[in-house]
Each structure stands twice: as structure tokens, then as C-alpha cells.
């Protein structure tokens, strides 16, 4: 799809996220005229719904309608679900294209969350994947994702804006899983696609002498102190944000630049990245992290 059509499709996508002010008066409605002498015929392609797993449902979460595939049971009567989207033209290396009935959807492998059984029951079922596709999806989710062939790190490009908005819709739901790494666009869409371009030192060859220097400084570079939180790395090299004690259990937002990456009750710590081989100071500068409490 060329860039102009992609821009137009992005407009349609944006419009799908917003409700109009009110229904259009009947007099202003576009007439639905059909071609003469046309008839209709349909494929007998009924989808088979299960109790929950494999169903595609639409749930309401705040101001958004979230389309998702129910994957499996999770502890405490919850279900693990993956965000899906009808906008297949925006698919990237983080997605699967899946068939459900006569439709193709995009399944976002990096956009999963937990739903309660009530939320699943109240959701509107709109399709279901068949057993063969369901097994293939589960297998793909176990594998590491494909390497990106495109190096699109421009966060203002429609492809990346789409991805950011898809994650914004599920932010509240994803924030329920405090032990999972946060989704941070600067990491997923920039660093993981072209590390050297976004953090030059990250991929530079520092040489043997440089390595000793790094070891000397490592103690200092593994911690970054801000007024509201501390950034540090644990033994698994995960980048951790630990809010100061006064912020723990408060409702807050964590932003990277102007993008909210967490909104909810602050736990003792949040995982920002599974692996980011730069100092915490560089991570702070690159991600431009800030934390603030929010009122109910």
C-alpha cells in the first residue's frame, strides 16, 4: 500500500476509535442504492464458538471497544487475551495474520492482557478461529518473533502511530499485569529495530580497554536516581523502575516522552525492558521517563 493510501487508511482507523457526537439525522443519511439486477449469494462458512478459548470478542474498556482473541485460562479465574485488529494493512513483525471465518485479522503478539470471566461473558462474540488456526497461533506465540526487515523507527509514521494507539487502548488492561515488561514504543519500535541509530553507544565496539573502563563505572551506571523513582538493573539485566516509597500504591502514570506506558496503581517495581545493554542514565535519556500521580 502506498504512503498516500496508508495515510487515508490511518484516518479511517482514527475515526474508528472515536464516536461521533450524535446520530446523523435521517435526512442527512447517504442513500443505500444497489446495482440493478444484482443478487446475493453466500458461502456456508459458519464459525464454531467454544466456551471462551479461540473466540474473538469485543469488550468495552473505558472509551474503547477492544477486539481480542481469547487464548487461554489464567490464574484467579482470568483469561489471557491478545489484541486483534481488522486493519491488516498495518501489520508488522510483531503480528500474526489470522483467519476467522471469511475474515483475516491481525493478532498483536506484543499486546496481551488479562480479562475477568465476567468481561469475557459480557463481550460480544464476533468470530472464532478454527482448531487448526488456533494450534498454529499457540505455536507461533511460543516462538521468537521474526526479524524486522524494515527499519521504520519514525514514531510519527502511520504504521507506528497505529501500533502506539493499539497499545494505548489496552493500557488499562495491560497495567493489570505488573510482573510483565511494559510496552515502550521507543524500545519496541526504535531500539529493537535499529539499536545503533537510536542509541549510538549501544552498538559501538568498545574494545578490551574500554571494557575495563565499563566495569569500573558499572556500579554507578547500573542505577539512576530521579526524584520520584529509581532506575536500576537486576541480575537478569532487566531495566527496573522502582517508585519511591511515597508513590507505591498510588494511582500514577509513567510516561516515556509523551506516551503513557503505565497507568494504574503503582507496584513496588515495574519492568521497563527485558534487555537494554546501556547504562541507566542513557536509558533515562533515551526513554525520557517521567512519573506522576494522577487523581481519581
Amino acid at each position: 500500500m502506498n504512503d498516500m493510501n496508508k495515510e487515508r487508511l490511518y484516518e479511517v482507523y482514527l475515526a474508528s476509535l472515536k464516536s461521533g457526537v450524535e446520530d446523523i439525522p435521517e435526512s442527512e443519511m447517504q442513500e443505500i442504492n444497489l446495482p440493478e439486477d444484482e443478487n446475493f449469494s453466500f458461502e456456508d462458512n459458519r464459525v464454531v464458538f467454544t466456551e471462551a478459548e479461540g473466540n474473538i470478542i469485543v469488550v468495552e474498556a473505558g472509551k474503547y471497544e477492544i477486539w481480542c482473541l481469547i487464548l487461554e485460562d489464567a490464574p484467579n479465574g482470568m483469561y489471557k487475551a491478545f489484541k486483534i485488529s481488522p486493519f491488516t494493512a498495518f501489520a508488522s513483525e510483531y503480528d500474526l495474520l489470522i483467519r476467522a471465518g471469511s475474515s483475516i485479522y491481525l493478532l498483536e503478539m506484543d499486546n496481551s492482557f488479562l480479562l475477568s470471566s465476567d468481561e469475557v461473558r459480557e463481550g460480544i462474540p464476533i468470530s472464532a478461529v478454527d482448531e487448526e488456526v488456533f494450534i498454529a497461533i499457540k505455536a507461533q506465540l511460543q516462538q521468537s518473533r521474526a526479524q524486522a526487515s524494515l527499519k521504520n523507527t519514525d514514531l510519527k509514521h502511520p504504521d507506528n502511530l497505529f501500533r502506539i494507539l493499539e497499545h494505548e487502548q489496552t493500557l488499562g488492561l495491560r497495567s493489570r499485569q505488573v510482573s510483565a515488561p511494559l510496552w515502550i514504543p521507543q524500545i519496541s519500535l526504535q531500539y529493537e529495530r535499529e539499536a545503533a541509530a537510536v542509541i549510538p553507544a549501544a552498538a559501538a565496539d568498545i574494545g578490551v580497554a574500554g571494557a575495563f573502563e565499563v566495569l569500573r563505572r558499572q556500579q554507578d551506571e547500573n542505577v539512576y536516581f530521579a526524584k520520584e523513582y529509581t532506575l536500576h538493573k537486576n541480575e537478569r539485566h532487566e531495566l527496573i523502575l522502582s517508585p519511591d516509597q511515597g508513590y507505591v500504591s498510588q494511582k500514577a502514570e509513567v510516561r516515556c516522552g509523551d506516551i503513557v506506558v503505565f497507568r494504574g496503581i503503582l507496584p513496588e517495581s515495574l519492568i521497563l525492558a527485558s534487555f537494554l545493554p546501556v547504562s541507566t542514565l542513557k536509558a533515562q535519556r533515551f526513554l525520557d521517563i517521567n512519573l506522576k500521580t494522577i487523581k481519581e
Partner: protein
Amino acid sequence: MGKMYEHSLSDLAEAFWRALSNPDVLDRDRTTLDMVKAWMRTCLHSKARVAQFKLVLELARQQQYSFNDLNYCLMGLLLQKMLEIKSKLESKRMEYEPEHFHRYLFKTTSIILLKCLTDLCETMGNNHNEYPQTWVDVRGENTYKSLETIQYNISQRKQALLLKQMIKDNWQERELNVLCHDLESGSKAGSARLADESRDNVYQLHKRTRDKLKQTMETHEISETAGKLFIWKYLQDLCQNCPVLRTYREMGHTHTTGGKI
């Protein structure tokens, strides 16, 4: 529920349900078809969908697609996808009071319409088959799309109709007669066309005409899928208006009625 046209929204919901219960009714009951159109019109102009619908109309206008074709494809896609979940809708119909069910049906239609509008928009952008190789595709082994589904792909439909027009305008009657014989000879009733030609000649004529069809498609950049759609859906219509010629030779002939499969 409010009044729409001369019918209440509940009346429209019931008509839509009638169509889902027996889609053939759309081709023989004008009133039900009109009510289904009114139902779709109302859902498209709801708060949730009107902005996307307007953008899709604008895109169709810019890319010179016919609005009637767009409506036809939209309605076909909607009904196809709703039919696929009929078992779930049936269980909700049993579970809910009629008015509650009508609201549920409205909400579901509105959601499914988003997928239909997106499909139309992506098809008009003509991006299909341009998926980057890095994507993992788990659409299943059976990626075959039936012609019933393809007929609601607005881009393929436009190409198939263009092919129909090209043949109608530019082909000689005796060439179309061969194509019709090719189509009709596969049917139970057979074909009265080319009855005076030998079997070998018929074979050669079929081959030559198929080559010409292929050439016409290449000249006008018509996809193979659209070609199949033309043969499945529109060739029969051309044949019904094409006189039955017993031979390919150019000579006076007696017009008889067109063959029918």
C-alpha cells in the same frame, strides 16, 4: 426504539433477522431487501460508524468506484460475516427479550460493519498480496477464497465488470458464442452452440478463445481472480443475450434464444 423510514428500528431488526435466517429472501422480496438496506443505513450512520463510512465514501469517490457497487459489496460482506456467527445470534435471540435482542443485533452489526469498511478500504487501496515477508501467516492451510466471498471484493468486482464490458463491446458475436459454448458444455443440459463444428475444431476454438480472453485480461490488467469471477458471475448474463450460432464460420444464421445453464 425510534422510527426509521416508515418502519421502527425493531421492524428493521426483524427484517434483518429474516434475511439472516433465509438469505434467498433478499433476491425475491423487495420489501425485505429495502428494510435490510434501511437497517444497514441506520447502523452506518450511528455515532460509532458514521465517520469511517464518510471516509470510505470519500475514498471510493477519489478512486472512481461506483457508490452502488460499494453498497452492494458492503451489504454482501456484512451479511456473509453475520451469517458466519448466526449460531451465536440465535442463542442470544433465545436468551434476550425482543427489544434487548434488537439492541444486541444493532451493536453487533455496527461492530462487524467496521471490519467490512476496513476490508473495503484496504481493497480499494489495493494492498492485498503486498504483505511483507516478515509477517507470520497463520491463516490456515486453506487460504482459498470462494467466489461467493470474492464477489464482494470491490476491486475484483470492478475488474470483472470491466472485462464483461470489454467483451460486450469488442468481441465478435461468434467469438462470444465459442466462450459461451465452453461455459455451457460443462452443464447438464449441454449447449446447442457449435453443433455443426467437428470435435477437433471445437477444441481448437476453445483454445483460441481462451487465449483471446487471457489477452484481453492482460491488456486491461485484469487479475486472474477477477477473470474467474467474470466467468462465474457475469459470463452467463452475456451468453443469455448472445444468439446461438451452430458454427464459427461467418455466414447467415438463425437467431435462437441464448443457452442457459
